[in-house]
């Protein structure tokens, strides 16, 4: 089959721009999602079932509904009342953060619960408050165990950011679709996009493996 390298060259600047936005969306999603996820995970762990309920339902909603629907909802229904107009980049960041926060919350919860009860007891018996024990004893250990599942989630997030193309956020997949729409050729844009996503996820993987190794030797 013929493969039109010239079309890829023509679109290279757009792929470059798109890649930058994809990286931006992913980093924003990871940072905000991790922060929110920690809060929500801790919220779900609260002993008071009534207080934990909203956190539980947050996780149920964002894990249990398609990200595509969440992105459309946030873009067309949530963001406009605040900004007076749509903003695809804001909507994409909000949707990716809220969605990944639900998964990350579960990773945090599982990580925290995997730490032996004796660790909390030892910390409390020394007079530390619950918050101190969490901060200095439980979370540092739990975090180490969370790295592999978090890495997994981050990789999923990078790929999920391609759904932002739906609302015309000019990220990597958007330009892939645009190229496809212009030339009616599927393989050149989509394989190019796939290779770039692969490079992004492999780079992240590399960083995470190094982090994991460093924490293991500590």
């Amino acid at each position: 089959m013929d493969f039109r390298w010239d079309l890829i060259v023509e679109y290279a600047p757009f792929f470059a721009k798109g890649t930058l936005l994809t990286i931006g969306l992913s980093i924003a999603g990871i940072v905000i999602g991790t922060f929110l996820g920690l809060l929500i995970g801790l919220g779900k762990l609260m002993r008071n079932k009534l207080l934990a309920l909203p956190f539980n339902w947050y996780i149920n909603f964002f894990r249990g509904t398609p990200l595509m629907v969440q992105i459309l909802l946030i873009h067309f229904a949530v963001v406009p009342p605040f900004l007076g107009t749509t903003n695809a980049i804001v909507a994409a960041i909000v949707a990716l953060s809220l969605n990944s926060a639900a998964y990350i919350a579960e990773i945090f919860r599982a990580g925290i619960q995997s730490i032996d009860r004796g660790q909390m007891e030892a910390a409390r018996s020394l007079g530390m408050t619950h918050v101190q024990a969490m901060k200095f004893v439980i979370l540092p250990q739990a975090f180490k165990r969370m790295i592999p599942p978090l890495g997994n989630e981050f990789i999923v997030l990078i790929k999920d950011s391609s759904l932002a193309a739906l609302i015309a956020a000019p990220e990597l997949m958007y330009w892939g679709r645009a190229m496809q729409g212009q030339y009616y050729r599927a393989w050149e844009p989509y394989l190019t996009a796939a290779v770039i996503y692969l490079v992004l996820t492999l780079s992240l993987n590399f960083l995470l493996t190094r982090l994991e190794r460093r924490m293991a030797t500590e």
Partner: protein
Amino acid sequence: MIKVENLKKSFGLNEVLKDINVTVKPQEVVVVIGPSGSGKSTFLRCINMLESITGGHVYIEGIDLTDKKTDINKVRTEVGMVFQQFNLFPHKKVIENVMLAPMKVRKISAEEARAKGLALLRKVGLEEKAEAYPDSLSGGQKQRVAIARALAMEPNIMLFDEPTSALDPEMVGEVLEVMKQLAKEGMTMVVVTHEMGFAKEVGDRVLFMDGGLIVEENIPSELFDHPKEARTKAFLSKVL
């Protein structure tokens, strides 16, 4: 120093402690023995509220732990605890294990905490392991670090929850040695243990627990040599 009144503890429908009354005087070493499931560990854990109390009262130096206004964290700084499974913090070096609580709870400086920590490690014979991680230590060494960690808060009372039960036999001695030293220095101690030799040698008083009750209590020589209750006799005949 410790006063336990009508202490009751249930896990669901399971009543583990039925009615415990004990007083521990300053500098006294009280040893708690009894078959497994007798409630002796639960009793010990109620003394620093690691278990919530179902009924009755526990007073530490006159402060009622069951009073909602009591700051339990403050009380715990006065009550050190040593666990069967050591529960050292694996992500921290030995010296950091010892320094952590004094720095975060007592808010002393890192230099001061380190100096104090090293002194305590010297006391338990592990100064050279200060920069090691707990994973590289033997069981006996871990438990000695755990004792140093508890002592770093300068508690007035030390609770020991079967401190030698998870150790290989050849390591039991080094831990008991540290505990004996502590007793000699006048520390108030409550020790749950199966080491009858230790109970005899160091204990001022021995409590025999069974079925959630204190069945018999006496000075060691009397309790071991002239037990009065049938259940005490049956237990001692099995372990001695």
